[in-house]
């Protein structure tokens, strides 16, 4: 099974190249529930802070503030429920817009990003559970990605392609991860964008592909780790100038795992965002 059902990023399920004004602070809360076969369940309370440091530079902080993993295990012939609860890792990203083409009611942008994952979480809260069911990885990681956004008055399209390179922490090293994401959002309401509308209701369809290399313990391959996962995420997003609320299902289209019978069943992501402003910026 893949290392961590990392649920979401700065957009609904991944970061795009959407505009953010200098001084604009967007606070997001993204509780996500993921169900896997075999009695494995993961609930992640993720907090995301997006700060417009300048007109081109955005700082994105993503932290898994609370991770609640549950798993069924056999003990003395009985099935017992084991839990690993604690804080997860924190990812700090720097996104810079390198290409921007604006029109009235439309924009197309390309923005590469780099990021560092800090092992801020608890990677060994329950020794009875395997490493990939602990709340955090215990690994440092660096990531590089290219994002793009094409927004119009009635639809938005976003894409990301990136790679996470992980480094061993406490002798255990999660596999590196390749990610590819795409999203399409379409305005359901209002039928015509006019002055004075309170907000817009979007139908969203996103997709995420993850490919993880195998995990290693003391440099040796760990059976049952790594693999590929392809998700498709239909949802609804209510967006106003000040806040947004979205509900998205995370549904597996295809998955392969290297020897582990655990499979991604489904996930559910609630996305809440609030826009704030500070006069401080570069």
């Amino acid at each position, binding site marked *: 099974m893949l290392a961590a059902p990392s649920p979401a990023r700065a957009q609904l399920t991944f970061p795009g190249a959407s505009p*953010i004004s200098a001084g604009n602070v967007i606070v997001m809360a993204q509780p996500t529930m993921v169900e896997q076969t075999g009695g494995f369940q993961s609930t992640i309370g993720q907090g995301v802070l997006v700060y417009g440091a300048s007109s081109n530079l955005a700082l994105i902080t993503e932290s898994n503030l609370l991770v609640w993993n549950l798993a069924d295990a056999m003990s003395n012939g009985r099935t017992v429920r084991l839990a690993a609860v604690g804080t997860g890792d924190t990812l700090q990203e720097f996104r810079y817009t390198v290409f921007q083409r604006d*029109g009235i009611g439309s924009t197309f942008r390309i923005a590469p990003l780099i990021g560092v994952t800090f092992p801020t979480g608890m990677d060994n809260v329950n020794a009875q559970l395997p490493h990939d069911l602990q709340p955090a990885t215990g690994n440092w990681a660096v990531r590089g990605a290219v994002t793009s956004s094409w927004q119009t008055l009635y639809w938005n399209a976003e894409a990301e392609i990136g790679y996470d390179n992980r480094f061993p922490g406490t002798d255990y090293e999660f596999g590196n991860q390749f990610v590819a994401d795409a999203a399409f959002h379409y305005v359901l309401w209002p039928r015509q964008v006019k002055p004075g509308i309170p907000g817009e209701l979007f139908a969203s369809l996103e997709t995420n592909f993850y490919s993880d290399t195998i995990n290693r313990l003391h440099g040796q391959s760990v059976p049952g780790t790594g693999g590929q996962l392809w998700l498709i995420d239909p949802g609804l997003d209510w967006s106003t100038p000040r806040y947004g609320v979205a509900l998205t299902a995370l549904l597996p289209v295809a998955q392969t795992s290297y020897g582990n019978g655990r499979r991604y069943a489904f996930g559910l992501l609630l996305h809440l965002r609030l826009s704030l402003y500070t006069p401080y910026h570069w």
Partner: protein
Amino acid sequence: MFSSVRRLVAVALSCGTVLHPGMSAIAAGPDNATGGREALVIVKGVATPFSVFGLLSRFRQIPGVTGATFDLSQGLADLTFKPGAVVSDHDIREAIRNASYTPGPIRWQNGTVQAGHPAN
């Protein structure tokens, strides 16, 4: 009525011509200070409601601005100023660039046009 007037204003601004009879044809320039008036500004690149907040916040940071609204459908910002406020085209364009958008033509006027997209 107002929406059709605003549409005319937006078309005029985007074409760089003045069609609205109530709008004074003041040339845009760095010394174009205002005195208790209103400015209509085309802003390019704003396509979603969630982008509006940051733009309006930048406008409100300009000293002398008393109100700012944005009409998403026409890319048209409507700024009002304190009487006697000194605000230049440069101040407005700088606010738009800081908001990560592209400024278009600016037209100054004394009349009042209905507000567009509110900030909340």
